[in-house]
C-alpha cells in the first residue's frame, strides 16, 4: 500500500449537467501522471475530490494512505496543491506569504525557496497586487514546491506562462523526481508538456476515464498507416482501426491498438503500405476525443 501515492476506486459524483462516472486511477510513488482531457471533461472535479474539496457520492479515495475526504486534514501536510483559481493576498508581499507558509509547515526548505525565487525571476518584496498572471502562477508554485511535499497535485500549472517560465516549471517538476518517494499529478491542456514529463497518462472525457497507462505504451498503441490501393483492391476493415481517410487510391488509417500485425494484414490483402507513422500526444488527443464522441452518437 505504501508504494502508491493515490488511488481512486469506482468514484462517482452527480451534478445536474455533469456526471463523473466510475473513475479508477492509481498513481505509484516516484511517478508523474499527466491528466488530460477536453474542457469540462471532469479533470478539475477529480482533482477536487482528491483534495477533499468536493465529496464523492460513491467510491473510495485514498491519498498518501489517508481516506478522503474524512482524513483530509492529515493528508494535506504532505500534499502540495496549486490551481488556477488559487488566491494570494493582494495587499501582502511574496515574502510575507513565504514567511506565513514557513510558520505552518516544518518541511519548508528556505535555501530551495531562495533558489526558486532566482529561477522563477520573482522579487520577494513585491506585492501580489502588482504581479502579472504568469508571476502569480509562479509565486503560487514556489509556495507549494518549497514545502517539498511528497505529493504534488497541480491543476493546469503551466497555463498562461511564457515559454521560458513554462520550461523552468517543467524542469522543477522533473527535478522533484530525484526523490523516488515523491509523486506528481498534474492536469494540462498543453499536450507537449504532458508528453515531455509524464510517466503515466490518464485521458478523461465527459466524466469517464478513456485510457490510463504508462506513457510509452499509451503512445505506442497509436499509429497512422499510409497506404496505396492498387486498382481493384479495397481497403479491408481491420479491427483496431478507428478512422480511415481516403481519396482515390491513397488512404490514411489511424489505429489505437497498433501491433506489428496490422501492416502485414494490409499487405496480405494486396494493399501497399507506404509508411507507418508515430503520432504526437496532440494528434492522439484529438483523435481520441473525436472517436469517443462518434462512438457515443452511433
Amino acid at each position, binding site marked *: 500500500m505504501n508504494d502508491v501515492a493515490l488511488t481512486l476506486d469506482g468514484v462517482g459524483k452527480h451534478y445536474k449537467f455533469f456526471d463523473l462516472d466510475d473513475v479508477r486511477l492509481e498513481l505509484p510513488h*516516484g*511517478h*508523474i501522471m499527466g491528466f488530460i482531457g477536453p474542457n469540462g471533461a471532469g479533470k478539475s472535479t477529480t482533482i477536487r475530490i482528491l483534495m477533499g474539496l468536493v465529496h464523492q457520492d460513491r467510491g473510495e479515495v485514498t491519498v498518501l494512505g489517508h481516506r478522503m475526504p474524512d482524513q483530509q486534514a492529515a493528508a494535506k501536510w504532505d500534499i502540495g496543491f496549486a490551481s488556477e483559481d488559487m488566491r494570494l493576498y493582494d495587499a501582502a508581499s511574496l515574502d510575507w506569504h513565504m514567511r506565513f507558509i514557513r510558520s505552518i509547515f516544518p518541511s519548508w526548505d528556505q535555501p530551495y525557496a531562495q533558489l526558486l525565487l532566482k529561477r522563477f525571476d520573482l522579487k520577494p518584496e513585491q506585492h501580489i497586487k502588482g504581479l502579472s498572471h504568469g508571476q502569480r502562477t509562479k509565486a503560487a508554485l514556489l509556495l507549494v514546491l518549497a514545502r517539498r511535499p511528497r505529493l504534488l497535485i497541480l491543476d493546469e500549472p503551466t497555463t498562461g506562462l511564457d515559454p521560458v517560465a513554462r*520550461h523552468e516549471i*517543467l*524542469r522543477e517538476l*522533473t*527535478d522533484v*523526481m*530525484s526523490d*523516488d518517494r515523491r509523486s506528481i499529478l498534474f492536469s494540462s491542456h498543453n499536450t*507537449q508538456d504532458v*508528453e*515531455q*514529463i*509524464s*510517466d*503515466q497518462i490518464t485521458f478523461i472525457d465527459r466524466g469517464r476515464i478513456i485510457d490510463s497507462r*504508462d*506513457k*510509452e505504451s499509451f*503512445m505506442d498503441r497509436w499509429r497512422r498507416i499510409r497506404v496505396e490501393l492498387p486498382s481493384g483492391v479495397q481497403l479491408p476493415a481491420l479491427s483496431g482501426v478507428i478512422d480511415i481517410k481516403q481519396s482515390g487510391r491513397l488512404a490514411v488509417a489511424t489505429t489505437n491498438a497498433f501491433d506489428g500485425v496490422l501492416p502485414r494484414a494490409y499487405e496480405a490483402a494486396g494493399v*501497399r503500405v*507506404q509508411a507507418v*507513422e*508515430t503520432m504526437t500526444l496532440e494528434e492522439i488527443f484529438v483523435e481520441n476525443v473525436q472517436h469517443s464522441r462518434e462512438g457515443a452518437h452511433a
Partner: protein
Amino acid sequence: MLSTKGIVLSQADGRPMYLQIMEQIRQRIAVGDWPGGQPLPSIRQLAIDLGISVITIKRAYFELEREGVIVTQHGKGSVVADGADVGARIHEQDFAKHLEQVVRIGALLGLTPKEIQARLREALERLTAAAKERT
C-alpha cells in the same frame, strides 16, 4: 563522469523522444566519447538532466540493451558495452538500416532488383569519382 550536456532533444524531429535519446547515445559511443565499460548516468539522473520523464529514459536504455550497445546489471546501473567493436557495430547497424530503406523505396518506385543494384553501383562510382577529383 560521462557528460550528457550535448544531448539535446528536438521538438521538430518527428520521432518519439526515446528514439532520439537512443540515437544520441549511440553516436557518443560510436565516436568514442563514451568508451566501453564506462557507467552511464542513472535513469533518474538522465531524466532530470534532460527534463523528461523517467519512463522514456527507461525505454531508451532497455532498447539499447537489446541492441547490445549497453549492459545493465541489476541494481548496479548500466555501462557501455565492452569490446573494441561496439562503435563499428553501431555503424554497421546504421548501414544495414539505410540499405533496407534504399531497397524499400526502390520497390515503391517499381524498380526491379537489377535496377536497384545498378543505381547503387552508379551512386558508388559517382562518389568515388568526386573523391578522386578533390585529391
